[in-house]
């Protein structure tokens, strides 16, 4: 069950240009969150940035009763959020949504993330029980490569790309996945990031007969499954229907989703 919570900000840190990490003290979230879930944050007071903003849980410290979110400055909501100070309160609802499938049947897994989408994959890597874990992470440039210690220690193999080649492979992270697949295979690929990347990953997974979970984004109203605005097309027998990212997702099996819109 998710709750409306007013929690204390333990710390806030600028990780990269426009990217912030906020650690929030929350016994409830730390206890109930699982990788892939998100929180819906009221960034502004009252009418300011009226709607809550969905942000994925990036990592969970179950002992310290804290969790982290990592977010990118985009508009007014994330801007206000980035200005909050340690010690202040943050108003959020969580944990929300359907998480990644972490069941033991998937032994050899890969995560592939792009941009801000790499961060929800961190808690997945951390919490997935001991198996072979490969991470493919794509960034804009060197400056955006952050939390590498954590990613390294949570994964067995780690591949990095940047758009401009300032670190790791120059180009798309997809390239590294495709290359790696020539020699390796995975039971399950988890992906999160820009839609074009996700589509490409799903295509590759399909071609290679690998199961795949995608974490999707859509503009939200309520975040709890009531307003039906966060629609995403999914299969229903031979037909389709609109499922909802906040309730049926954000994590879907790739073969449930129809990517034609």
């Amino acid at each position: 069950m998710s709750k409306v919570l007013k929690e204390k900000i333990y710390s806030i840190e600028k990780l990269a240009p426009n990217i912030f990490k906020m650690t929030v003290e929350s016994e409830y979230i730390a206890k109930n969150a699982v990788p892939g879930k998100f929180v819906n944050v009221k960034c502004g007071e009252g009418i300011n940035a009226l709607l809550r903003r969905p942000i994925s849980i990036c990592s969970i410290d179950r002992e310290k009763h804290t969790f982290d979110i990592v977010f990118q400055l985009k508009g007014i909501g994330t801007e206000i959020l980035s200005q909050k100070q340690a010690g202040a309160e943050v108003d959020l609802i969580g944990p929300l949504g359907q998480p990644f499938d972490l069941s033991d049947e998937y032994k050899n897994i890969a995560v592939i993330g792009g941009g801000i989408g790499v961060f929800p994959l961190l808690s997945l890597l951390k919490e997935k029980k001991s198996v072979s874990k490969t991470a493919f992470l794509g960034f804009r440039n060197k400056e955006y490569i952050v939390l590498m210690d954590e990613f390294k220690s949570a994964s067995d193999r780690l591949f990095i790309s940047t758009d401009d080649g300032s670190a790791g492979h120059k180009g798309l992270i997809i390239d590294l996945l495709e290359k790696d697949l020539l020699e390796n295979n995975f039971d399950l690929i988890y992906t999160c990031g820009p839609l074009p990347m996700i589509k490409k990953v799903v295509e590759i997974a399909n071609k290679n007969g690998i199961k795949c979970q995608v974490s999707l984004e859509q503009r939200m109203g309520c975040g709890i499954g009531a307003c039906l605005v966060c629609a995403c097309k999914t299969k229903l027998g031979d037909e389709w229907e609109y499922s909802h990212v906040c309730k049926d997702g954000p994590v879907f099996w790739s073969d449930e989703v129809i990517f034609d819109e």
Partner: protein
Amino acid sequence: MSNIDLSVEIAGVKFKNPVMAASGTFGFGREFADYMDLNGLGAISVKGLTLAPRPGNKPPRIAETPAGILNSVGLQNPGVEAFIKEELPFLRQFDTKIIANVAGSTIEDYCEMVEILSDADIDAIELNVSCPNVKAGCVSFGNTPGGIAEITKRVKPYCKKPLIVKLTPNVTDIKEIAIAAEDAGADALSLINTILGMAIDIHKKRPILANNVGGLSGPAVKPIAVRMVHEVSRVVKIPLIGMGGISNGDDAIEFMLAGASGVMVGTYNFIDPAACLEVVTGIESYLTKYNYSNAYDVIGKLELNG
């Protein structure tokens, strides 16, 4: 606060308090049960129903605007039969009134739905004759006196439940629309539905909503809604349910003073899933503060400046 009587009567139905969840913002109640006691609500107006299930519009279906939102859900719903079978039993567990909100593309649709719902265990029917988010649809009925009179008159004989007609604000003169609905047999009116709007992504040079336009709701529309409730309250005798931007008890009191016997909370449910109950508490505090004992000490009690 215990000796304050918050109950109101609208269209022959007694609501335990004036606060209701607005259609389309509260689903079928399930999701909110985690966040509050649904027994505390005066009523729930369920997500707009159509005869057949509808998938709704393409996403994005929502855009934030200053102090408001635009939505273009496009009446995604499982259809009236599925509602009765799968959703109503859940809702009926609670001691609150259930209003079925219906929309159609032909008058026949409306009549058929109203007939079906008349035999269901609901407390009232709310005709959505003004949904701006479906292409061929109900828009046209709601924005002329003739249109609203016709649909109300045609639906009425099929309707064994109290009939609430929901008015669109996208009109030149809401008074004449309200009068037409009253004359044609509406037992109550609810207002306002959303105001047609557009928000543009200047980087993509396209509207944010896949549907291009959507309905504006939230605090931004409150002064327009209050004005319309006030205007309508002066020209009709049937009770009104006011809505548009209500986020707390004080907002609700504005609508009640302006002439609304009931109030609905819409968009604010998204910001605070317990918003409806906070509105109830807020109304109660206001009545207490001024030593009123009864919701009717406020309803319609606005005095105009000379």
